[in-house]
């Protein structure tokens, strides 16, 4: 594993609440379970949350600002995941703000992580297009845009595409998150094809995540859905990780699954 093979991917969206942190936690977990050495970097300084998604919140001693300001070595601050030693988190600082780190320092940090032999460095970008965004994208060589099939989030994604291009992050990947196949079928919700058509052909569809209650329960437990078999969203995230690694994986047939669960619900009297 030479450092040249390290992929540095920023996960961004513009709009808040579309699932960046959940996506970061799940893709990171899935990649680590596939044998990749993964560093997750929470760039949302002041609003730390990636630690919660991973269940690592009680183990934080040092954070990204401590490393940048020289109070801790990078290795001291990296938190190894209990479940998978291939996965490590560099937490955001909670009591500082975006201005505590600048883009040059972020690039330096990414270089240090490269030297540590990680094969994937995944950066969880804060919402917005200000300094937090510039920090998170500074050291990245690839970008994943997370959007929901909903107008304001697609609009913000379009804005982000333009800003990424300005930073030479071209042809970003696209993840459509929180899709409701039933609503798409009844044409009450934008379809993935609609989102692609609107955003244009320079985005590459990387995955489609259905709205799934398992995301809520897994976040509550601090155990990403991708780590456990049996959920559609978890499967979708594992497929994304495989696609990132270069595998050809067909997109899940979400409509069929709805039909299947619908029939199951019908059989059992639609009780919850």
């Amino acid at each position: 594993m030479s450092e040249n093979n390290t992929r540095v991917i920023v996960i961004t969206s513009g709009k808040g609440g579309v699932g960046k942190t959940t996506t970061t936690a799940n893709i990171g977990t899935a990649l680590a379970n596939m044998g990749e050495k993964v560093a997750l970097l929470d760039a949302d300084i002041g609003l730390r949350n990636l630690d919660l998604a991973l269940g690592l919140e009680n183990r934080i001693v040092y954070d990204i600002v401590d490393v940048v300001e020289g109070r801790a070595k990078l290795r001291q601050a990296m938190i190894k995941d209990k479940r998978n030693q291939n996965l490590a988190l560099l937490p955001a600082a909670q009591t500082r703000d975006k201005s505590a780190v600048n883009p040059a320092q972020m690039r330096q940090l990414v270089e240090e992580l490269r030297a540590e032999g990680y094969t994937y460095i995944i950066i969880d970008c804060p919402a917005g297009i200000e300094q937090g965004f510039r920090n998170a994208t500074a050291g990245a060589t690839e970008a994943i845009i997370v959007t929901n099939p909903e107008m304001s989030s697609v609009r913000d994604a379009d804005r982000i595409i333009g800003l990424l291009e300005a930073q030479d992050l071209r042809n970003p990947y696209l993840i459509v998150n929180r899709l409701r196949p039933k609503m798409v079928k009844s044409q009450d919700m934008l379809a993935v094809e609609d989102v692609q058509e609107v955003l244009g052909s320079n985005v590459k569809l990387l995955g489609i995540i259905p709205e799934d209650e398992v995301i809520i329960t897994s976040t509550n437990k601090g155990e990403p859905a991708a780590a456990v078999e049996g959920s559609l969203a978890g499967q979708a995230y594992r497929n994304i990780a495989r696609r990132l690694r270069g595998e050809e994986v067909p997109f899940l047939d979400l409509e069929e699954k709805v039909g299947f669960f619908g029939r199951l619900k019908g059989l059992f009297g639609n009780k919850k």
Partner: protein
Amino acid sequence: MPSLFDRIFGRAEKPAHTAKNRLKLVLMHDRADIPAPMMDQMRKEIIAVLSKYVVIDESQLDVSIERGEGGVALVASIPIVRVNSEE
């Protein structure tokens, strides 16, 4: 608002379709990125040129960027009061 008849027989535009069309439009505005002052200047200059030939009702003037056939279009609706006889 679609009529009850349209809604019953499913002729109303589907919400997904509405959303897609609205999005396309708003993104063209966003992407065209014409700043408001420039838009205003353009409007004034259009008025100035037209005023050489016709008297226009400035209060009813409407200039906007719209999605036309195959692209973004500047659409102007300029009510003419009368031909400028002095010219």
